[in-house]
């Protein structure tokens, strides 16, 4: 946890979204089915899909939560529950202290206009509107006048590299270009709470990296709360403050990237993360142990990954390498052998 605090700044303890026991069941009579399941978990679920099961989650202001999981594990459905695009079957979702299930229609519309933005997995562009009009659409809904919203939309289109295509219609664009229109549309309103459902899946690596940087910049600058779905672990590691791993509608584990890799909560998470290069995730700080004697030699920063330290680890002859936090205070020592094991894989 200390890690996480260190990375996101001091004023993050305010919970923006909080879920308790959120469930979503698709089927003919979901409410009754949930009640049956509560009474007897062995009830047969034929004809029902339990897309989200009993999810508890607290998301802090300024946090980027990455949701991962296999296809069909319920990621998109969870995000739709959080934004009340679909009504949940059980549990509560609270946004800034307000239970969104109890919001009136006008209050919900107001919340969406002021606070929320979303990028959709299959883009959700309006087919009859030009690219420019698509990007300006949320601004139009907020009642901005024509020239300001077009100016803003043009700016956003330039940002995602679609300058010159303003007058195109969605069907005239490639998949990646359409996705960028979707991104531009949600960027245009700079929402406080951002739901991104595989926003970069159709982008080429170069643009993808640019977009990631843009979102990181905005998040750092404006303290945005972002819930981000992806299948790409590299992307998750680059962006995430915490990663939630879902399986069959349940959150198996929700923790910082290095905790997930070093201490997987379940076998599934272990398998899920098995292929990841741990050296790129694990930071020096998480290997720090109480020093027995005095620190010897120069300390390394706790936030650096083992991969960053590879050269030093191989060249250095010290048994224990001291670790320093941001202020340069020594917080412990890292066993070089342990770090090398992380770097090279354990000897078998």
């Amino acid at each position: 946890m200390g890690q996480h605090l260190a990375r996101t700044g001091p004023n993050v303890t305010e919970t923006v979204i909080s879920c308790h026991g959120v469930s979503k069941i698709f089927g003919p009579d979901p409410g009754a089915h949930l009640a049956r399941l509560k009474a007897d978990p062995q009830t047969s679920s034929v004809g029902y899909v339990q897309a989200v099961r009993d999810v508890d989650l607290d998301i802090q202001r300024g946090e980027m939560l990455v949701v991962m999981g296999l296809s069909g594990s319920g990621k998109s459905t969870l995000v739709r529950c959080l934004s009340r695009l679909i009504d949940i079957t059980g549990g509560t979702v609270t946004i800034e202290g307000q239970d969104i299930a109890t919001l009136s229609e006008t209050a919900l519309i107001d919340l969406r206009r002021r606070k929320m933005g979303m990028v959709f997995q299959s883009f959700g562009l309006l087919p009859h509107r030009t690219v420019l009009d698509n990007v300006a659409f949320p601004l139009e809904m907020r009642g901005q006048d024509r020239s300001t919203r077009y100016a803003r939309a043009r700016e956003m289109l330039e940002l995602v590299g679609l300058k010159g295509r303003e007058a195109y219609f969605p069907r005239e664009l490639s998949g990646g270009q359409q996705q960028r229109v979707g991104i531009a549309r949600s960027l245009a309103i700079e929402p406080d709470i951002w739901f991104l459902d595989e926003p970069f899946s159709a982008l080429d690596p170069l643009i993808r990296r640019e977009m990631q940087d843009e979102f990181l910049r905005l998040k750092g600058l404006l303290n945005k709360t972002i819930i981000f779905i992806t299948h790409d672990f590299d992307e998750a590691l680059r962006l995430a403050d915490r990663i939630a791993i879902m399986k069959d509608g349940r959150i198996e584990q929700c923790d910082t990237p290095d905790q997930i890799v070093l201490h997987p909560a379940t076998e599934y998470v272990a398998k899920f993360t098995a292929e990841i290069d741990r050296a790129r995730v694990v930071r020096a700080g998480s290997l720090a142990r109480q020093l027995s004697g005095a620190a010897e030699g120069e300390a390394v920063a706790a936030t650096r990954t083992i991969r960053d330290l590879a050269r030093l680890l191989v060249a250095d002859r010290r048994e224990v390498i001291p670790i320093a936090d941001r202020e340069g205070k020594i917080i412990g020592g890292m066993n070089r052998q342990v770090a090398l094991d992380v770097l090279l894989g354990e000897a078998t």
Partner: protein
Amino acid sequence: MTSPAARGIGMAGLLFALALCLALGKLILPEGLIRPPEWLMQPFADWINAAFYFLQNDLGLMSLTRAFSDVVEWLLDVTANLLYGKSRWPNIGPIPWIVIAITAFMAGYALKGWRLAALSGGTFVWIALMGQWKWAMETLSVIVVAAPFSVFLGLLMGVLAWRSPKFERVLNPILNIAQSLPHFAYMIPVVVFIGVGPKAGAIVTIIFSVPPMIRMTLLGLKKVPEEVIEAGKMAGSTRWQLLTRVRIPTARSEILIGVNQVIMQCLAMVVLASFIGMPGLGQKLLQLLQSLKIGLSVEIGVTIVLLAVTLDRLSKAWALRLPEHGAPSAQWLQRNRLLVVWIALCAAGFVLAQLAPYLHEVERKQALSVAGPIDAAMDQVIRIIAPVTAWLRWFLITWVLIPMRDAYLWLPFTAVLALLAAIGWAVGGMRSALICLAYFGLIAMSGWWDRAMITVYMVSISVLIAALIGLPVGIWAARNPTRAARILLTCDTAQTFPSFIYLIPVIMLFGVNDVAVVAAVVVFAAVPIVRYTIEGLCNVPPELVEAAEMSGANRRQTLWHVQLPLALPTMLVGANQSVMFSLFMVIIAAFIGTQDLGQEMQRALSSTDVGKGLVLGFAVAFMGLMTDHLISRWSDDRKRALGV
């Protein structure tokens, strides 16, 4: 022990045997089982009349319909003034024909390109030069008023049905019946409420063309992708914004296809509305046909066909046009180039029309006519083929039509009911059997059994002949993709013609009698059979055909064992349409002189007997609905069995 299917066949067999016994034992049957007995008949017509009387006088519906019809009349007057110079407000018409032709040309060019431009511009030039301008404009002025009304009403009801599933559940059966009621059934109540004339014609046209618009709106709204709607919601749209800026625009294609159908229905109805005193092309055609002026009626027929094809192509081009981007930073002038050209051309047209009155209005004596040569040529042709047609007519009437009609009339009604129940049971078990019984039972109770049997006989013989012609043509056409495409296009075009048109050639060939009616119905009914046979056969997956060929099947075996069974569900859709079309056509053809329900309906129309007219209309609708039920049920079963 026995499977349900086998039991179904068993029960069906039993019912079939019952039908056979009733038919064979007719001589010893009591009279009550042969023809529907008196006590069975219910005075449905009186009930309906009472209900209408109540609506008309006690509910004040009369003033409401009068108010509505006054609005329609005012609009009709405005368009009539603009299009053919009726002296009403705004008193600026008529617009010179050259300007309207230019407008049609530009619309065609803007929507599709040169070819459509030539077609639509050419249509209006033809109309003007042939001296039919006034009649065509009388017809068009009604469409111009009626179509927007229908579109608006259809959109409104479609949205309501989409909003409220309860309303949809109520609306659905009503639409089913409405779409199987013959044209005339709509006219009678309108005549009661509004009277005869252009106003009544417009209103009946509006009512008649609303159902497809409702259907297409509903379909389009249901098809909008969920994520598009969610994107709208996340942008913070209110429900109204979501509907008007997200759902309806996204459903654009379906809604515009609905508009296309409305326009075509309007044209079909407006032509028929001549029966209730609607002036225009339809009335002219009716008069000419009744006095057997073949050449002139061919001229009018060509006009109606051209108009139908033009309206269809224009509205379809609009519906199917996908949005395309223009140059990003173009000037206003450049973006609206076509608009500017159109305005300039129209201005030029007005000026020219001032200078040369011929371009303003073609006088009757200046009009071209091809009637003379057509009549002469037809005389020649008829002289040559007269022996053949005369023989054919004699043969069909004495050896096919009259015996069949007598056979249908001879059958005891109980035998018919048992037979229908047997078919129903075989197709869909008890439920279908009961549905068949209910529909025909009601017909028996209406007191129009004999007339109904004549209609059934005409439809069944016509569909049979249509199938005998249509199936081979379809199979032949499906052999070769280019041929298939060409014939499909022909069928599509033929389906846009108002049904009335089909009467011209058959009257030409056979004169005015049952054979002509059957011939018209056959042609009309063969079109969907050909069309869906081709579609069904062309959509059989090629792997399956190849697999059959690899296992050594010859062409005939492949056709019989692979292609036709797989194409059957699609072909059944064609059969269904075919029956529907023939029912409509038989009723329309009644004015040539048949003795079926159609003739009675015309009588009801001329005596404005709503109750009788609607009872007859429902009788026809029930026949259609029963066939529709049986065929769709069968087709669904086949589809399920084939796993498609």
